[in-house]
């Protein structure tokens, strides 16, 4: 029973992490064209896109950690 609950929690955590990737990508479309539209400097869209990509790469590292033969 405990293992089942753990399994469910793990699946839920995995699903949340996985879904956060398309959410971040959607933000990469929307934020630069709205909130950062007038920020014409390196700390505007450029920094946002790079940080968002860093987050996506980190999520890939976490979500593929259990890939085993």
């Amino acid at each position, binding site marked *: 029973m405990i293992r089942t609950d753990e399994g469910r929690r793990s699946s839920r955590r995995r699903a949340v992490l996985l879904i956060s990737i398309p959410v971040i990508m959607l933000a990469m479309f929307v934020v630069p064209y709205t909130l950062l539209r007038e920020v014409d400097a*390196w700390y505007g869209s450029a920094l946002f896109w790079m940080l*968002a990509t860093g987050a996506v*790469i980190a*999520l890939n590292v976490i979500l593929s950690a259990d890939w085993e033969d």
Partner: protein
Amino acid sequence: MPAEWVWTGVGVYVVLALAAAVLSRPGRSEDMSAYFLGGRRMGGFVSAMSYSATTYSAFMMIGLAGLTYAGGVGALGFELLYLCGVTLVLVFGPRFWRVGKRFGFITPSEMIGHRYGSRSAGATTALASCIFLIPYAAVQLAGVGYLLSGMTGDAISFTQGTLLAMALAIVFAMVAGLRSVAWTDSLQSVLMIIGATLVVIVVIWQFGGLGAFFDGLAEQPGAMSVPGEGYFTFSTFLALTLPWIFFSISNPQVSQRLFTPGSMKDLRRMLLGFLVFGFIYTFVSVFWGFAARLHFPDLESSDMATPTLLGSELVPTPLALIVMIGILAACVSTIDSIMLTLSSTLSRDVYAAVRPRSSERGQLRLGKLALPVIAGLAYWFAHLELDLVAVLSVSASAGLLVLVPPTVGAFFWKRGTAAGVIVSVVVAGALVFALEATGTLFLGQGSGVWGLLVSVLLFVGVSLLTRPPRDRAEEFIAASRRGRRETSDDDAALAAQR
């Protein structure tokens, strides 16, 4: 840069790459899996470097730098969104790998044909791949032409550059199939990432530091925001980005690589290695575009941004030569991978569909014969000398977007049918072709947006009106989900049956 220097550099590269290709050869590759997939035993590092080299090519260092030169920071967002799209490998990578091992698939089209129970569906996706990938290979050839002619002031002509790239691609693919391609790719990737990063460091130093570099950009209003100066309208950004987000599953020369790692750990190394490589490479390419923009604001064509930067006094000649050879190698590595994928596709999915009793050896022989023919077609396209390398490249990949719904459906929608695949690929593919040929921007959106939308609607609609291969779908999807250990006992038997 003097042409003698360039030819000497090319000579050294050819010798090194040929040595890598020959060393990669483990013996005679007598079957399709050994030749086209490296026997499904590719290691993680080589897979990652080769995946990177296949994906990143003339487009990055010439096209993306050119796009940055022309449109500013939007180019960074476009390319980073593509990189994030490779996350699809997180979902599809293990599934491709498992079904490839279980059913013995050589090509993604073969997988589609099997999953939907129809060789015609496989042949249709195979032909669509050929129609759209040959122009894509041509883009890479044109990239070499621009690079060599730009850096030598036409001492090496566009034609000589494209001929050289074509000849090298044929040789690298013929020596040992995927193994020689992957080893030469790895050599190129390592060389390129080191050389290109050194250029960034040197150019920043030449500009007087990072602060001076950003001060220069601050004097160009709109360079660091979107739509900025107006090039990257949201429609343009979407039209460029959308095909690239799905690149990892729509383009068979990269999705075929999901069949090749020796283990799931190797697959993981391939994915993560590529993401890190891509992040650095994107930053470097965009930086080059900005550097050219600041130092050479009046270039006739944005595609000349990189050749001009490398040929200038900002970059020491030996370093520029190393990077130039790296770009040449990057173009070749993309072309030979595409040639390899298309030749396996033609022999496995088209020839074998027409002649179902053809032997494995016969298919391999035909595949090898197809290699120079595909290269010749790409060479012809390259000589159309279309202006903006990046835009043509994206147009070609927009056509391959029509393969996304059948691929996603194969793993996640049991109701999908062969008729749905055939109709969606043919009609949506023809639509993309027509929009590109006539230069039509329907409702202001690019061909990829319409191609994807129409292919989804047709795939779902026609599938719902036709009878699905339920047993096949159940078996395929179960195999894609189960772990290797559970299926290992019957892997060999099933592969042998096929």
